[in-house]
Structures are given as C-alpha cells and as structure tokens.
C-alpha cells in the first residue's frame, strides 16, 4: 500500500539521513586527527605550504624513525615517557574508579545526613583552578619528597578524578533497580557480594565511561604533570610533547608523530573498554 511504502521510504530516507549525519559527524571529528597523522608523515614544507598542497606528495616515516633513534639524532625518550604515562594513567584510573565506585555507591544506595552537601562539596573541591593548586601542591610534594615520582602524580590524578568519578558512577548506580540488590541480599549475599555480583555488572556502562573519562584525562593532563615532574623518570607524554618545542621553533612534524604514538594506545585501550558500553542491561529484570 501507498502508506506503507511511503512509511518504508521515509524510514529508509531517515536511515540514509542518519548515515549521512553520522558520516559528517565522524568526518568533523576525525579530520583534524587525520590531519595530524598526515602531518607526521609529510615534510614540513608541505604542511606549511602556501599555496596549499592538498594531496601528499611525499610520505616518509622520518619523524618516527628519528623519534626512536638515539639522543642527539632527534630522538626523545619516548619509551620512558610512554612507560610513565601508562603506569601513571592506568594506576590512577583504577584507583579513581575504585574510589569512585565506593563513593558513588554510598550516594546511590544509602541515606545519610548531609548527603547532598557532601555530594556538592566533593565537586567544589574541583572548582579550584589548577594554578591555585599547583604551586602549593608543589610545595607539599617537595616537602614530602614525592616530586618527580610516579606516586606523586598518581596521587594528584586520583584526587583530580575522584569527584568526577563519584558523581558519574553515582548516577549509574541509581539506574540499577534497587530490587536487584534486595533480591541478592535475600539470596544470602552480604551487601558487598550483592554489589559485586549484581550491581557492579549492571552499572558496567557507567563505570566504563567513567574509566574512559578518567583515563583520558590523566593521559592528556599537562598542567600538573609539567609542574610535578621534571625528569624522564616521571615525565609523561603530554609533557614530552614540548620536547619538540624549542626556544624559537617547534618541530610540528615530530610533535605530530609523538601525538600519533600517544593516541594509538589511548585508542586501543578505549576500544577495549568501550565494549562494556552496552544498552538494555537491566531489561527483563523487574516488572512495573
């Protein structure tokens, strides 16, 4: 019938519009990134050309080669930076998410006095701009002797992310029907077991997104890292990016190459973690 075919047509059209929209969105998202990838492979003369050279004439991996080659040959201690970044980001993400889960759970599942003020208060600790924080923190770290250490940065990043993860994870625990934890308790679980066996898996998407968020924040954080680290034993990749800037020059191609090196693991990790972002987890659980 007419109506049906027009409905079908409309649906197909909407599907196409959706795909086009998606394509355009992804294009805008990815183009600047691809430009960076491309820049890392092209000689500067082509990147900064006027009139512009749209189609790469010459592709080379020089920037990568020299990045990994020895000191003095254009190399920077990527491996060390990479190691630092990975250790710091992963550890602090795990800790921040763990603390976030504990806190988020407390907010989502318990009633206690001053709950909203504490909740708000947590976030207010993050209203302090990094500037007002970084120097006193530096003082403190110098006194404690944890300047330029992994531990120091991990601690700072945990504090940085905890309010966010708590807020986020709280929101997702609230979406898990209370009945399920109750059922688990009836089934003989302690609150802890009920949490791990039932609520945690169901809040998965939220926790995954919080983890991704926390991880990428740490992975890219610059201001504190540049203040609290000084040598290759603790410097992270974003700080390392500035190795490509000298007093008067910046080696844009090298920077892009390092950026690519930075992005690939982040992309991989994100890809792994995002598989927990699934919908409809709680469907079928409760009636009404």
């Amino acid at each position, binding site marked *: 019938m007419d109506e049906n075919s027009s409905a079908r047509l409309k649906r197909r059209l909407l599907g196409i519009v959706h795909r086009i929209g*998606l394509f355009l*969105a*992804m294009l805008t*998202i*990815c183009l*600047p*990134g691809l*430009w*960076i990838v491309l820049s890392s492979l092209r000689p500067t003369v082509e990147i*900064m050309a*006027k*009139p*512009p050279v*749209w189609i790469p004439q010459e592709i080379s991996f020089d920037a990568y080669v020299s990045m990994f080659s020895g000191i003095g040959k254009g190399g920077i201690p990527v491996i060390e930076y990479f190691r630092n970044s990975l250790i710091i980001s992963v550890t602090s993400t795990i800790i921040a998410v763990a603390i976030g889960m*504990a*806190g988020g759970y*407390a907010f989502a599942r*318990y009633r206690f006095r001053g709950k*909203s003020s*504490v*909740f*708000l208060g*947590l*976030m*207010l*600790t993050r*209203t*302090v*701009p*990094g*500037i*007002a*924080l970084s*120097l*006193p923190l530096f*003082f*403190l770290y110098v006194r404690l002797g944890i300047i330029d250490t992994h531990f120091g940065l991990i*601690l700072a990043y945990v*504090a940085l992310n905890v*309010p*966010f993860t708590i807020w*986020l994870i709280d929101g997702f625990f*609230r*979406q898990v029907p209370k009945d399920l934890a109750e059922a688990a308790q009836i089934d003989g679980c302690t*609150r802890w077991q009920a949490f791990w066996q039932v609520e945690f898996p169901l809040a998965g998407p*939220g926790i995954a997104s919080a983890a*991704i*968020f926390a991880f*990428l924040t740490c992975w*890219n954080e*610059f201001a504190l890292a540049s203040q609290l680290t000084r040598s290759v034993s603790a410097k992270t990749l974003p700080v390392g*990016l500035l190795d490509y800037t000298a007093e008067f020059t910046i080696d844009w191609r090298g*920077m892009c190459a390092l*950026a690519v090196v930075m*992005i690939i693991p982040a992309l991989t990790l994100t890809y792994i973690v995002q*598989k927990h972002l699934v*919908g*409809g*987890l709680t*469907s079928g659980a409760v009636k009404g």
Partner: protein
Amino acid sequence: MKGFKPSAPFLLLLPAFIVLAAVVVVPLLLSLYSSFTPFRLTKPETFFVFVGLRNYLSILANTDFWWAFGRTVLLLTIALNLEMLLGLGLAMLVEKATRGQRILRTLMMFPMMFSPILVGFQFKFMFNDNIGLVNNALQSLGITQDAIPWLIEGHLAFIAISIAEIWSSTAIFAILILAGLLAMPKEPIEAARVDGCTPWQTFRYVTWPFVMPFAYIAMTIRSLDVARAYDIVKIMTDGGPAGRTELLWTLVARTAYSDGRMGMANAMAYFSILLSIAFTVYFFNKLAAARTQIGAEW
C-alpha cells in the same frame, strides 16, 4: 575510640575524603592564605607579609580582570551549551547506528585522546591566517580571497577558540550521555510510541528526562575541567592580541608564573572559584531537580 562504629557510607567515602584532603584541601588552604600576601615567587620572604584584602581590592578595580571574567563566563556558557547539544546529537547518532557501534564509539571519543596542548597547536596552525588549513581551504574553494585573521579579530578569535574547545570536548558529553542513554529503561519509550509520540516527542518527554541527569553531570564536570580549555587557549592566543581573548585562566596563569605574582594570582583564582561554585551549584540544583523528576530519591 571504643565502640565507635562508623556507618557504611562514611567508610565508603573515606578514601575519597582522604585523597581529597591530602591533595586538594591542604594546598587549598595554603593558596588561600597566600592570596592575602604580596607573595612573589622569586621573593620567598614575601610569603610571610600579610596584606589583608589588598589583592582582592586591587582586583575589584582591575577592569582587565572583569573583562576576562565576563569573557570566561561567556565562553563557558556558549561552549558548554553547544557541546552539550552536539554531544547529545552525537550520542544519539551513534546509539541509533545498527552496525559498527564499537568503531563508531571509539571514533567518537577520538578528540578526547588529543592532549589539549596538541589541540591548541593543531587549531592554531589550522586557523593561521597565512598558511592555515582553514584559510587555505576557504581560498581554494573560492569562498573568500582575504586572509581572514582568525586569531586576531576579537569575535573570530573567540569563535576559533570555541571551535577548538568544542571539537576537543564534545566527545566528553557524547560519551557520558551515550552511557546514560544505554542505561535508561526501554519500556517507557515503547509506551510513548504507543501513546502516539513522534520520535521527537519521545525524545522530548521520555528520553530527555532520563538523560538529563547525565547531561548535568557532564556539564558540571566540564565546567570545572577547565584545564583543557586553558591549555588550548594558552597556545592558541594566550589571551591576545591586545587582551581580546583574555580569559580568567590565562590571566591568572600569566600573573602567577610569568609575572611571578603568586599572591595576586591566587586572589584572582579565588574570584574565579566563585564563578565555578556558581556554575557547580547551579548544575547541582538542576541535577537534583532532574533526579527527583525521574523518581530517584536523595
């Protein structure tokens, strides 16, 4: 303390309290104190000179500061709202996709993986009036023959900064909102469809109320997570030229480290905290309201 049995929520929140106290509260008190001194980085002895409210008073009279303040509010407002809208749209586009969800989601988060520093450089190059990608493209396409001074002209610079900021941070909204979309129950949507809702109405009356809390959480997070914006602006224009894009953060950072006037910078920072607190409390109230609406208790 014998017989003291701490409650479960207290224990659960304890780690958070400890970390925050160590890393945030102590430094915070230090910097609060220093805002009442003429503390200069290169003259440590000034840390112990107490000048009361002098820094604050001089800020009150500093028109540059207030311009920067206003501009910051404007940027936050515009950028946050646009990011939320775009993030929402992006999240919905991705959620609707039937194939390649994983790839799409990962791509969607692509900009989050760019260090803000890099984003700053990237957009600075792109918006370069002479050899920048944007002008090159516009000129190649014959849209304009002028070299548009993106980072110079006040409004354009503001736009350029906003674009960089939005590009780099929309993904955060998208991912948080997407997670919210995934977590919401599907039955009410079906009910709404049967009740005669168009897709738009379904979104407006059912989906949105559910996603709203997540949007507000994302808003709060973003409004506070200014480090990103700072790094970007710092590299793109550093508040210039002629202070046309000066934001609170660039002003404070320059005062603190370049000028080394830490006491003054901290005083400014505390003013900007007021701004952040206002934003946070505002979003918190919105969040609380949205929560009561979906029947979650406080």
